[in-house]
């Protein structure tokens, strides 16, 4: 059996040359959490199964900065590294992989140009092509009032809308149907973030994760809302997620990665200790 993965996420602001890790609440109110190279090394040593970097500034001239950050990170980190934020072309993929990344995640570029998923997965392989989906609940009174896939949640029925540009723009696209399309186009993995839960520490959006893991065969990484190890357990047990992504609980030393893994192990979840 493949072990469930624990993945710390480093949101990087590249306005300073060495980059800095930041953490926002519901995609806003940015706080600084440290240096990307040092944090990545620390997480690797604590037993992270993979490390995700998201360039939240993602403007063109900063792409070079991200390449340098990844080069420096890869010298000390011997687990897979995934990079996202502003990746637009197959060339961007190969550049990041050359710098030492193993995977790239795309969101905005994939929605604007879905063919990019097909092309990238052919050139760099599905295993290196991750599609990130930022999903926002849209509640409905009656499941039949929309043609979108409707999920029953603790607060009533809703469908999920894809957002792009780091949560700044909504697309009208059904996140669940989109996840299925991404798989068909060759994506190797879905990084699924709940915008409603991100930064809240109320737990992952289980109905969302469950619905998507039911419908796709590629691995799904749960993201957004983790506040304690029980939330991670729920993402695996109730949501069937393959991996759990977390930021602030690790950045602010509320829990260490090994604490979380020990907790999961004791509850019977297969993790790499």
């Amino acid at each position, binding site marked *: 059996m*493949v072990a469930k*993965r624990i993945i710390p996420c480093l949101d990087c602001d590249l306005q300073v040359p060495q980059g800095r890790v930041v953490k926002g609440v519901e995609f806003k109110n940015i706080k600084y959490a440290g240096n990307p190279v040092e944090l990545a090394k620390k997480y690797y040593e604590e037993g992270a199964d993979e490390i995700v970097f998201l360039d939240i500034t993602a403007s063109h001239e900063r792409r070079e900065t991200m390449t340098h950050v990844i080069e420096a990170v890869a010298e000390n980190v011997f687990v897979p590294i995934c990079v996202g934020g502003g990746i637009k072309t197959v060339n961007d993929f190969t550049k990041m992989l*050359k*710098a030492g990344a193993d995977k790239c995640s795309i969101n905005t570029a994939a929605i604007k140009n879905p063919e990019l998923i097909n092309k990238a997965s052919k050139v760099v*392989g599905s295993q290196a092509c991750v599609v990130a989906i930022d999903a926002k609940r849209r509640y409905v009174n009656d499941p039949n009032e929309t043609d979108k896939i409707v999920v029953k949640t603790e607060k009533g029925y809703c469908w999920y809308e894809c957002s792009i540009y780091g949560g700044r723009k909504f697309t009208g696209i059904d996140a669940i149907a989109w996840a299925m399309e991404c798989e068909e186009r060759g994506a190797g993995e879905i990084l699924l973030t709940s915008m409603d839960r991100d930064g809240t520490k109320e737990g992952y959006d289980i109905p969302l994760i469950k619905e998507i893991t039911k419908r796709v065969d*590629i691995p799904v990484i749960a993201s957004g809302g983790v506040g304690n190890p029980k939330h991670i357990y729920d993402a695996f047990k109730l949501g069937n997620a393959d991996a759990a992504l977390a930021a602030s609980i690790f950045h602010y030393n509320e829990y260490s990665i090994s604490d979380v893994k020990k907790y999961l192990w004791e509850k019977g979840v297969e993790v790499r200790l």
Partner: protein
Amino acid sequence: MIAVVDYGSGNLRSIMNAFKNIGVNVNVTNDKEILKTADVLIIPGVGAFKKAMVNIEPFKDIIIEHVEDGKPILGICLGLQILFTESEESPGVMGLNIIPGKVVRLSAEKVPHMGWNKIKIKKECPLLNDIKDGYFYFAHSYYAKPKDWNVVAATTYHGSEIPAVICHKNIYATQFHPEKSGTLGLKILNNFVELVK
């Protein structure tokens, strides 16, 4: 001298970084003269079988001669698969045929096989010195089926039992990525280096 064959495939920087971490210098090169004199060859690989075979063509004879001279070789991931005769991924394309057998598609609930999986040791192999049944990082959709399963030193399970480590005379290969498998992966690379010390 340890040489990594740079045939335009794979995450060479990660392999370099991993060896650097264990204090070993490797020569990542496409220079045939250097490759010919290498004591040890490492064949990396990420991507599709056919593309790898096209790109490795100029180095094919050097690799085969290296193996025939009894010098150690290490294939990693797709670098393991191209050591075999052929692959379902690219029908009609011949592999290096150093190990008789065919590479076939995984039949499992989730493909690609991506993530950390446990290995089970099948026979003694210097690569696995001081390693028991730990977790290693896999990322692949095809796996090798050797004609003679005695070449398999360790397996993992994903849909069926699949070779994780090949160990046959001077031929070594891993289906997982040792350079991305944490301390245990680094240990494997270290064990490989010990072979030529």
